[in-house]
């Protein structure tokens, strides 16, 4: 049975009418037309669908949307300042050209933002641990690591 749920996304409340057990990812992509979170595996193991949930990087592909009421959800879109200015991590990804196909980039940026929230100057070992949940098939991980080091330096 569909329900009206109010979600707090990128600083704004949004009321959506959905099946309460719908995974958050599909509500973000289809109801709210956000492109950031991507479907990758549906098993919470690749990271493509990550969002910031109360500041923590979490997969969105399984968690029921109903359980998201009252939580603060931030997607890749929400990182960009309303005036268009990029978040330091987004900017560092552009500067380091840290993508090939870019399909995993959403989760990489989200996980990197969460990492830098808890560790302002992570070393390589800490970056690897912080990014371990995110898969990339193009082999862009080394560039992402450079982007994270750059963002840490510049923010």
């Amino acid at each position: 049975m569909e329900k009206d749920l109010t979600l707090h996304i990128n600083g704004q409340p949004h009321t959506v009418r959905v099946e309460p057990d719908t995974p958050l990812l599909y509500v973000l992509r289809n109801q709210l037309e956000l492109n950031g979170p991507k479907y990758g595996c549906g098993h919470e193991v690749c990271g493509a669908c990550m969002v910031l949930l109360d500041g923590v990087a979490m997969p969105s592909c399984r968690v029921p949307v109903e359980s998201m009421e009252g939580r603060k959800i931030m997607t890749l879109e929400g990182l960009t300042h309303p005036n268009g200015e990029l978040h330091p991590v987004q900017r560092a990804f552009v500067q380091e050209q840290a993508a090939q196909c870019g399909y995993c980039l959403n989760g990489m940026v989200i996980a990197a933002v969460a990492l830098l929230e808890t560790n302002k100057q992570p070393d390589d070992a800490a970056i690897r641990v912080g990014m371990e949940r995110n898969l990339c098939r193009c082999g862009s991980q080394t560039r992402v690591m450079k982007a994270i080091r750059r963002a840490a330096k510049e923010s």
Partner: protein
Amino acid sequence: MKESAYNPQQSRRQFISSLGCLTIGFSMTGTRWADASATPLQGTLPGSLAVEDRIDAWLEVLEDGRVRVFTGKMELGQGIRTAIAQVAAEELDLELAQVEVYLAETGRTPNEGYTAGSGSIERSAMSVRYAAAAARQQLLELAAQRWGKKPEQLSLSNGKVSLKGTTDQVLSFAQLLNGKQLEGEVNPSVKLKPKSEYRYVGKAIPRTDIEQMVRAEPVYVQDLRLPGMVHARVVRPPAYRARLEGFDEKSFKVPGLLKTVVNGTFLAVVTEQEYQAMQALEAAREHARWSATPPLPEGQDLETYIKTLPLKSQSVKNQGTTSALDQPDARTLKASYFKPYQMHGSIGPSCAVALYQAGTLHVWTHTQGVYPLRDALAKMLSLDPEKIHLKGVPGSGCYGHNGADDVAADAALVAMAYPDRPVRMQWMREDEHAWEPYGSAMRMEAEARLDETGKISHWRYALWTDSHSTRPGGNPGNLLAARYLAQPFAPPSGGYAGGGFRNSEPYYAIPNLKIDAHAFEGPLRVSALRSLGAYANVFAIESFMDELSVKANKDPLDFRIMHSTDERAIAVMQKLKEMIQPEKPGPGEGMGVAFSRYKNTATYCAVAAKVAVNKASGEVQVLRMWAVIDAGEVINLDGIINQTEGGMVQSASWTLKEEVLFDKQHVNSRDWTSYPIFRYSDVPLVEVVVIPRPNEEPLGAGEAAQGPTAAAVVNAIYRASGKRIRHLPVRAAAVAG
């Protein structure tokens, strides 16, 4: 926030604008270009100009003075859009922002076959270079006529032609053409811009699409949201050859279900909402009955098994005599190598959107070849190819023939059965893992003899392989769904055997040489995976070269160099030697090297790896990798570096972790847990040096690192542990002890 309700009144303008930066607009007024003739013209035109030589097939001047360049190739994350913009802006002296690159679309862009084999720079970008040079010449001639001057008296920059020495005699490209387009054909003798004057070519020009990605703009086919779009999933059989014996449609009731498509064994569900489609997929499995099938050869040692299959054999090379190898002695060496089935493993499962409306089928697809796919779809659906319109939209990186074409066929079948609303067909993770066509398992056997100076005098090599291309190529039997229809199309036998012996000949001077290839048809579906057979062949050859260098008691790079006659090959190896000189491996660590020239005619690449081996557990960590690459004339420096860095990381993952497994029923590598790939903790630091060769032909760089990386890693393991790994992937048990 919008409801996705169908609104047929929505205007075309709104329709286009609602899709953001994705270029998806079709020209609804019929096709712009006739199909390119399949017959190459005579002459010396480069690349795809040989099949399409009209200037206006490659570029057009827009009203605002910018230039739109058409390529039949697809952006796969390799950055081809940027490379093509660079060569066009260069020849036409435009700012990069004044060039728009329009990707593959039937009826709109030239037919350039597939975006594959590292051929996009060599074929598409070079065609654009010549077409842009021809356009420049024509624009200068038009202005010269207008002003009664000679072209030499004019200059051209930023989309304008001006009379030298004046400030008021200036016309934009658009003014010069006055509503017309460029005409005529590209003359092979057209004057190209001198390379000394290049502003963009050879530089590390940043890709503009990465900013679109970080801004979460719609970039991928997965991001398309067409008005009234519905969601579909395919219910796969439990095995390749299982048939649908019954589907209880009457009792199959799920929320939002709009249509169940049953066509032979092809079974799909269509719903309003995406999550409903996923629930319908699970529910439909409960209502379907499938036939039993003959078992797959579960539990066999594939390295032995594939030699027992019926074979089609051919000689690849036979030079001198190799009978000296028949009597093994202290100077001969023999070894056998194996590479398992491996998958493309795209991070985003394949996706397509299809709409059948007013007798025309539109498909938005991340295929690597819109024209060959269109022709295969036309045959599968018994539709006139002119009634099928394909627009290429980037997807997740594919690294060869993954599920892209298959999902487009799935979407097309459902759209035909459920017309007038766009159908978004999204493969699930399991569809991609268990149904994509894999890179074939291969066995390689090598024998060689050293002469008294330690040089290789005789070399014999044989390989066993399945096909390395079953791309649609106009043949519906190569589309997964077509095999399951009520009137099925059989998959063609054999495919492209040549891919299996790519790089099977060592790129070294060896007087007596014999190379044979044996093709089998194995248990799993196969096709083109990045570098085709070169990965396995270079792994084997360059491992064997390492074994021989040990036997000859030579430094492994020196040993390769002493067998090389091509100075560009020697240059990449010498540069690599210089780079790794300061590296001193610690206890339990080792350095390995390898070299190959891709296809033996294209890019040169030498790779080194430093690994750490835990002798007790057999665990291997790749610490660092280095590559030196010569891809001829550099178009985009960072493009080559990015492709090579990524190629090394991906190939190291194949080598250390990856193997598609199956049981009696079907593939059971169905997710990232059952088919693990590199994670951050596995990824080495990488360093790439490019040797630019501005006066040589530009070569594609996307596949050059795959083979040498595999060999460099196993050679490093040998140096670290004394264990020679000849069977991939590297297993801890083979390294431990």
